């Protein structure tokens, strides 16, 4: 069950619980980060979510920072999420891939929980990597997923000290993460419905586009340059190949009314809960993303390759 939570209040609570020296290692990603970016200043606008994804970076500091943060949160009476499988910490004998992810509720509340992740080694864009995180309270899995590294690109520092990922970069990571609409579904229900992971993540791209356009009608036209810069920084060896994959899944989503409806459903029950575009308007957001960002990226790549780069 997802709750309406205030991005500002959650960021404040997390920042206060984590030692200031570690703020630099924390980047909030996902719907809460997007929610804070778009309506963090409006206390009346809330985000429909339950998980707050915290990215620990850079990679070489992630384990040590993770250990310190998790120990501190347990000391501060944050509680492990025990209502799911793998609700207890592992130990030295637990295989890496069977260790639980760190998911902690803040003291006295079950409205939301914080989940820790880390960035992949450079150039990894294919698979999940399990990293053992040994804490005083047991062993956990500090997973990394493909393209999470991008979230470190020019993150936006909040007034609470910790940073949030740039919305357009989260959109890029989601686009790269879904080259097609896969059959995998989310483990839990979203507002009572079983939803394909691709539809949820690609729907997030459209939600970010929708909110970005409400702020700046030229927003999407600015994304390609930012995306290329981020890809060149974190994927210097294969960024050109990656640009070719951007948007394939989104094209499929827009062509399939069932998948599009599912994506729309997740957004109007999530990031766009306070905004509520119609399905037609949501589809137009998708067509705008294709035209103003993805086609631009592809046509620029073709020009560059054509010149012999």
């Amino acid at each position, binding site marked *: 069950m997802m709750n309406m939570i205030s991005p500002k209040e959650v960021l404040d609570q997390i920042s206060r619980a984590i030692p200031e020296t570690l703020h630099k290692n924390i980047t909030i990603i996902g719907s809460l980060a997007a929610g804070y970016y778009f309506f963090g200043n409006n206390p009346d606008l809330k985000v429909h979510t339950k998980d707050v994804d915290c990215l620990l970076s850079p990679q070489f500091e992630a384990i040590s920072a993770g250990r310190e943060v998790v120990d501190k949160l347990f000391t501060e009476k944050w509680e492990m999420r025990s209502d799911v499988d793998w609700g207890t910490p592992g130990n030295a004998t637990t295989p890496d891939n069977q260790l639980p992810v760190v998911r902690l509720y803040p003291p006295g509340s079950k409205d939301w929980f914080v989940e820790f992740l880390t960035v992949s080694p450079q150039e990894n864009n294919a698979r999940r990597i399990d990293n053992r995180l040994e804490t005083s309270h047991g062993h956990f899995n500090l997973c990394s997923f493909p393209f999470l590294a991008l979230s470190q690109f020019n993150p936006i520092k909040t007034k609470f000290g910790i940073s949030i990922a740039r919305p357009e970069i989260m959109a890029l990571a989601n686009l790269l993460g879904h080259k097609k609409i896969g059959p995998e579904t989310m483990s839990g229900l979203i507002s009572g419905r079983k939803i394909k992971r691709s539809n949820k993540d690609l729907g997030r791209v459209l939600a970010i586009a*929708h909110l970005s*356009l409400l702020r700046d*009608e030229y927003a999407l036209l600015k994304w390609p340059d930012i995306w290329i810069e981020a890809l060149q920084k974190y994927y210097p060896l294969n960024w050109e190949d990656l640009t070719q994959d951007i948007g394939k899944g989104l094209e499929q989503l827009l062509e399939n009314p069932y998948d599009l409806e599912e994506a729309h459903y997740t957004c109007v029950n999530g990031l766009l809960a306070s905004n509520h575009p119609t399905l037609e*308007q949501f589809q137009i*957001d998708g*067509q705008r993303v294709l*035209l103003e960002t993805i086609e631009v990226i592809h046509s620029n790549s073709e020009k560059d390759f054509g010149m012999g780069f």
Partner: protein
Amino acid sequence: MLINYRNDVKGKDELKPDAVAGNTAFHILTEPKDSRRIRSFIMDIARISVIGKFSRSVLIVNNPRITLARMKDEWTVAATVIRAEIFNQMVLIIHHLGNWTTLSGSNISEDIPLFAEILKNVSSQGTGYKRRSSAFFDIFRILLNQWLLKKGPTAINKLMEISGKSHPTVLRSLKSLDYFLIRHSNRQVELKQFPKLFWERLVAMSDIERSTIVFTDKSKKPRSPQFIIDRIKSLNRNDIALGGVVGANFYCPELDIVGVPRLDITIHSPNREIDFSFIKRIDPALQLSKLPNEHASFVIHSIHRPASLFHFDEKLNFSIADPVECLLDLHEARLEPQALEFLNQFRRVF
């Protein structure tokens, strides 16, 4: 696509469609004021369809004076009395103030240029009601443009060159305008005053004369006119000019218009072939307007004469439609006070 008009179609007069393109027959009904006319024309296209063995029969109802609901009623009744295999070949298209819609719910976007072309030509031939010919208004618009810009007399040869009309056609049009003309000894002519009567007739026919097509924004966040202009510029086309409020402001910066309620452009298409697919490249939110009361965000007009009379503005780095087109745009947008002010200011400025 080759279009044959009534005079070129074989058969008995009462069973001739107004136009034929491919294996489709077109019949035009202009400004019907009662259901009986609709009913009668529906039966006509059914007969035309059967006797002419057309695969499709299209009835274009132009600027109806009855409600959409009454037309729907007639169409629904017709479906019950006409054999299904015939009725399924029939299409009812409604053109009202630049908006095109169909009762069948099918997508007609790609056919609109063809419909507009047929409507314009059939109307100019006088079917349904008497009116000045399209050629007359073409010549009139050129003369008016010269008059507004104080360009002085224009040679008849030059009028032929700009309009693409033959010598007899130009002479015939000038004869109709005789009262408003100064004829110079060297076969040159110019307007001596603003011909209000003809202007009002042109304004009344403006959307047909210029094949106006209206687009509305279907997104939650319509793009600003400036954004649309930037997108059009990025297409690098020299056959498009800005008109409407933007054009009027270009000619008369003092004009009292706050904001740009809608963006008007004119496309120069001497061969009468316009591919509207570029609209999707401007903004996918722009979609063909289907209802007369929908807000017009973006409006396209066409001119088919050989000379565009566009003015390229270095500062804007884009073309501006001639002042007559801009003035007509203001009228079509129902900005009547601004149109009058534009006209008055224009004569003072130039």
